């Protein structure tokens, strides 16, 4: 068993290295681009919503940034992971290796990206005069939930993508819908209480809200809130694991 962990550990680091070099090798700016890109989106959103729509909320940039950051990690990770099986088909149809490694290595790539932008968020928050408290440590909770959720979704999507090659377009539509439902640039305060609760049915919105509660409001969400967040993550992971287990030996016929 120990031997096995060691063996796959090496393969895993090699896969991560490969995905990482491939992602950044071809671009001139390399890793800087991964920070610049969300930053530019942020600036555009900020210009549009604060100047043209006259949003006069306190710390609006941070409000926007938290939403944008979490959502970008979600789309980045799921889109990368969707390809994990198909793009590694030439490997797993020839060599017997655990297939989830391909997926996890893609996840590491997008997680690094996420962490870089997260640092940026903290810098922005400091500039914007947000008070840092010990409660910021609680941000680890939604981050872990988000990672788990993304891994689970990635498993489901990569398996689906093997069977149905138009998943990319369908997923594009779904993320588009989720984006509008995640209240990235607007607040839901004006809606009735019932509708506000309905927003929590969207896992991404829930995680975004967690971030905002800690950073902007300085409060730790309720236990129920925590439970719901963990439930989404675990359900996604359980479904993903189920799909992988069930179709593990079928993938090969479809690629």
């Amino acid at each position, binding site marked *: 068993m120990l031997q096995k962990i*060691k*063996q796959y550990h*090496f*393969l895993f*680091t*090699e*896969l991560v*290295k*490969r995905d990482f*070099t*491939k992602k950044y*090798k071809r671009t001139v700016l390399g890793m800087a681009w991964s920070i610049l890109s969300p930053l530019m989106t942020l600036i555009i959103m900020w210009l549009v919503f604060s100047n043209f729509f006259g949003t006069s909320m306190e710390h609006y940039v941070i409000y926007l940034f938290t939403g944008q950051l979490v959502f970008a990690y979600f789309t980045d990770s799921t889109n990368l992971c969707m390809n994990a099986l198909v793009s590694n088909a*030439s*490997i*797993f*149809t*020839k*060599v*017997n*290796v655990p297939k989830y490694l391909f997926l996890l290595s893609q996840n590491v790539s997008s997680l690094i990206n996420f962490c870089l932008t997260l640092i940026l968020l903290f810098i922005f928050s400091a500039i914007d005069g947000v008070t840092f408290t010990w409660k910021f440590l609680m941000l680890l909770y939604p981050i872990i939930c988000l990672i788990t959720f993304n891994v689970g979704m990635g498993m489901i999507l990569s398996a689906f993508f093997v*069977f*149905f*090659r*138009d*998943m990319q377009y*369908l997923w594009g539509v779904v993320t588009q819908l989720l984006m509008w439902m995640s209240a990235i640039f607007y607040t839901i305060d004006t809606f009735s209480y019932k509708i506000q609760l309905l927003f929590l049915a969207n896992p991404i919105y829930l995680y975004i809200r967690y971030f905002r509660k800690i950073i902007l409001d300085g409060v730790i969400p309720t236990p129920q809130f925590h439970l719901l967040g963990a439930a989404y993550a675990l359900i996604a992971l359980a479904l993903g694991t189920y799909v992988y287990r069930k179709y593990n*030996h*079928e993938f*090969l*016929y*479809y*690629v």
Partner: protein
Amino acid sequence: MRSVLKVNNVTIRYKYGDFRDIGLKEWTMRKLTHRYHVEHFLAVKNVSFELFEGDMLGIVGSNGAGKSTLLKAVTGVMVPTSGTIERDGRISALLELASGFDGDLTVKENAYLRGAMLGYTKKFMNSAYDQIIEFAELKDFEERPFKQLSSGMQSRLAFSIASLVQPEILILDEVLSVGDGAFQEKSAAKMMEIIKSGAVTILVSHSVEQVESLCTKVLWLNHGEAIALGDTKGICELYQSFLSGNPDALQEASNRWGPGKESLT
């Protein structure tokens, strides 16, 4: 003698049909109009064999006989529909050599990645890397992107990585014919070294002479069925005669070395 690989009544049902590369929309439409068909066929039918230390098994058969499918089951890439495969030792497979490499990565990066895929440790790769590159004669190409190599060079690298570990079970699918003459000689010598060191080797080849000169046992597959297993010389002669258009050779081979006819040890 220690039994290294035991294949018991392995049957593999292969799935095929026009279900590949279709989208959800297409799938839904076909399901609704009852035009979605998945066919199955038995690529390998009830094949058994057992290999002991030092054995070298040659598998012969025409295209579509199930040779590659059987090998995939042996390596664990495919799971047999029924039957079992018992392996005792590390498997190193050279199936379609150059595939599974990444064209954008350098030779060195690819060597490490392939080594990791074959289950080597990092420590082993660090110590064996120079040896691999030297054996593959790619010293001047280490930092080149893999796609710039010729296909001969690619196969040389693949062979060097897979053969250096002294695997207990080595699987070679049409790979002895890689590289130029000099490298072929070298790789054949390397192979003999591995075989002599007590490993089990399975060789799939279309070259009957090659099988005849190297192997200690032969398995003849035809449409997924094991026609004959055992004596190298006799089966190779009949297979050669079958290839040159003598259909009775198949029956004769089956009568003499068919399943159950010959003690496998």
